[in-house]
C-alpha cells in the first residue's frame, strides 16, 4: 500500500473510473415487454358464474396436466375449503356467500391477472417473465433459476413452484393460453364456459362493456370494475355483486406493484453515477487521510 505514490494512484484511479463508465450505462432488459394498446383481456362476471368448474377441467386438459373426467368436476364439496392455483391447477373456482340471496352463492374463478405492469416481470433476476403484445404475462423455462422471488413479489399470490421436483422444478401459472391463441383459438376456459361468464376481447373494449353492464343493472353489480385501476391495471377484469373484499380479493391499491422498488433501484444506480462518485470520494479520502496527524502523517 505504502509504495503507491500520488501520480500512480491518480493514473490507476483514472483507468478504473474510465472502465466503470464504459460499462453498459443502461442495463438492457432481457425480454422485450410490450404494453400494446390492442392487448387482449378477459372480463369475468362473477354474478353470472354458476361454479360448474368446467374451466378447471379445460385448463388442465389444454396444459397437459393430470385430470379426472369432466363429470368428476360436478363435485361441489371442494367449495368447502378455499383453494388457490398451484402447480397442478392453473385456475380454481371458490365459492362465497351471497348476502342478498343465500341460495345463490357467488363463485369466483382465480388465475393469473396478467397485470399491465407485472411485479414478476420487474423482479425476475434473469428476466424470465415478459408481458407479451397479446396481453399475456408468460414465463420462460430456459432462463428461470427457480429463486421464487416472483412468488414473493406477486400482489395476487399467483405463481406456484414444483416443490416436489428435484431436477427441473418449474414456476407454474396461467399463461393466458398464449399458444392456443396464436393458433386463433380462444383461451380454453373461455371456450368451455357454458354461461358466458368469461368474455374474451381487447382490454379497452372489455372496460366499456363492463361499464355498460354496471350502468344498466345497478342492482346487480357494485360500481367497481376490479382490475381497471388496481396495481396500474390488469388484463383480467372482474365484476361482482358484493364488495370485492367479501370475495377475498386482496387490497392492492392503484399503483403498479414495481413502482417504489424500481424508483429506489434507479435512484441508487442512476447511470452508475452514485457508485462511481462514492468510489472517487473514498479514493480521495484514502489519499488525504495518509497525511492526517492522528495517522502519523508521512510514513
Amino acid at each position: 500500500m505504502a509504495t503507491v505514490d500520488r501520480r500512480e494512484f491518480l493514473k490507476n484511479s483514472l483507468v478504473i473510473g474510465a472502465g466503470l463508465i464504459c460499462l453498459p450505462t443502461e442495463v438492457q432488459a432481457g425480454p422485450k415487454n410490450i404494453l400494446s394498446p390492442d392487448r387482449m383481456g378477459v372480463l369475468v362476471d362473477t354474478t353470472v358464474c354458476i361454479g360448474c368448474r368446467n374451466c378447471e377441467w379445460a385448463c388442465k386438459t389444454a396444459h397437459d396436466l393430470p385430470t379426472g373426467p369432466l363429470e368428476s368436476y360436478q363435485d361441489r364439496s371442494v367449495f368447502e375449503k378455499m383453494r388457490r392455483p398451484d402447480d397442478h391447477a392453473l385456475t380454481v373456482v371458490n365459492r362465497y356467500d351471497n348476502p342478498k340471496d343465500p341460495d345463490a352463492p357467488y363463485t369466483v374463478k382465480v388465475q393469473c391477472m396478467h397485470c399491465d405492469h407485472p411485479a414478476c416481470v420487474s423482479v425476475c433476476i434473469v428476466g424470465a417473465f415478459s408481458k407479451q403484445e397479446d396481453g399475456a404475462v408468460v414465463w420462460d423455462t430456459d432462463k428461470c433459476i427457480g429463486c421464487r422471488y416472483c412468488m414473493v413479489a406477486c400482489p395476487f399470490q399467483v405463481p406456484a413452484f414444483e416443490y416436489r421436483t428435484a431436477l427441473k422444478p418449474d414456476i407454474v401459472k396461467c399463461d393466458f393460453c398464449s399458444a392456443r391463441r396464436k393458433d386463433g383459438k380462444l383461451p380454453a376456459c373461455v371456450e368451455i364456459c357454458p354461461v358466458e361468464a368469461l368474455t374474451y376481447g381487447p382490454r379497452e373494449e372489455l372496460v366499456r362493456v363492463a361499464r355498460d353492464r354496471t350502468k344498466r343493472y345497478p342492482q346487480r353489480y357494485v360500481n367497481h370494475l376490479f382490475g381497471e385501476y388496481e396495481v396500474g391495471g390488469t388484463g383480467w377484469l372482474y365484476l361482482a355483486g358484493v364488495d370485492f373484499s367479501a370475495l377475498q380479493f386482496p387490497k392492492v391499491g392503484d399503483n403498479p406493484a414495481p413502482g417504489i422498488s424500481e424508483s429506489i433501484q434507479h435512484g441508487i444506480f442512476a447511470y452508475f453515477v452514485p457508485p462511481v462518485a462514492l468510489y472517487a470520494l473514498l479514493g480521495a479520502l484514502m489519499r488525504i487521510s495518509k497525511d492526517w496527524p492522528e495517522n502519523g502523517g508521512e510514513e
Partner: protein
Amino acid sequence: MNHFTKPTPIQKKFLTPGVIVLILLALNGLAFLAARFFFGIGAVTNLNNQYPWGIWIGIDVAGGVALAAGGFTTAALGHVINRKEYHAVVRPALLTAMLGYTFVAIGVTIDIGRWYYIWHPIVFWNGTSALFEVGICVTIYATVLYIEFLPIVTERFIGHVALPGPLSRVDGLVDQALRGLERGLSRVMFVFIIAGVVLSTLHQSSLGTLMVIAGPKMHPLWQTPILPFLFLLSAISVGFPMVIFESMLASRSFGMKPEMELLSKLGAMTAPLLGIYLAFKMGDMFIRETFVYLTVLNTQSVMFMLEILLGVVVPLRMFLSRGVLKSPPLLFTAASLTVLGVLLNRINNFVVAYTPPYSFGSYFPSLGEVSVTVGFICILVLAYRAAVMIFPVISLPDRTLSPRARYTVRG
C-alpha cells in the same frame, strides 16, 4: 501501539471435543442437504406456494451478508482512512467476510430450484430487479474478497515453497511467481479495497430493497420505502460488534488474551453507529405511525420488540458505558446482542414479516431447514479454524520485531 504484533498461523491442535461436535452437526446438515437434491426442496423444507422463502434465505443469505459486514467496515477504517492501529483486526474480518460470502453463495445455490443455473444472472440481465443487483454485486464482491486475501497466501508461502516429489524442482520458479504476484498486488490493492467498500454499500442496501415490492404482504412494522437505508445502517453498525464477537471467541478457543485495547475502541465506535440506526428506525416508525401494531400481541409485535430492545437498545446502552468497554465478558455480551439483533432483523424482514393474504397456516422452519443452516454455520466455523491455522491471519505479539522493524500488514 506500544507493542508489536504480527499475523501468525496459530499452532494448536485442530481436533478438540468442541470441533468434533461441530463436525457431527455439519454431517447432519449435509445429510438433509442430500435429500433436498434427490427429492426436491419440498421434501426437506416447510416451504410452500404461500411461503416461498424461509430461513435459508432469511438466515443463510440475508443474515450471512449482514454479518459479513465486518469485512468492509474494518477495511474502511484500516485502509481508507488509514487507521493503522486497527490493521490487526482487518485480516480476521476479511477472512470472516470471505468465508461468509462463500457460504451466502452456497446458501443461494441450494435454495434455488435449478441450482445448476446459478450462473444465469451473469448472462441474462434484468436491471429492474433488486435481486439481480444483489446477485451481481455479491458475485463481484466475493471475487474482490478473494483477491484481497491473496497477499496473505503469498506471505504464507514465499520462502516456504516445498512442493512434493519431482515437483520440488520448480520450487524456485513458484517462489519467484509468488513474489511477482505479491509485488503486483501491493501496487493495485487499493483499487480492490475501495471497490469492496463501494460494492458492499450497494448490495447491503439493495438487500433491503428486495422486500419492498412485497408491498402489503409484508407486515407494516417492517415494510417501509427506507428499508434499503435501514439495511445499510444496520450492516454498518453490526460490522465492529461482529469483529469483537469473533475475535473474543477465537481468543478463547485458542487460549489467548483478548485484544481488549483495540476491541474496546471498536466498541466505543459502535455506539454512535447503533444510535443513528435506532434513530432512523424509530423515526420511520413514528412517521408511518406503525406503533399501533405493537398494541396487538402476536408473533410480529413480539419479534419486533425483541429485535429493537434486546438487539439495539440494550447493546447501545452497554457500548456507551466505560465499564462495559473495559470488561471482556460485558463487551462480549454487548457485541453478541448486536449481532443477534441484526440477525433477528433479517429473519424478521424476510420470514416473520411475510404475511401473505392467502395462507393455510403459518411458516415455521422444518428440522431439515434448521439442520442445513446449523450445518453450514458449523462448516464455516471449521473452515475459519483451519484457515487461521494455515495462514497468518490472527495477530500475535511478536518479540522478534524491534521497534525499528518495518511494520506492514497487507490485505
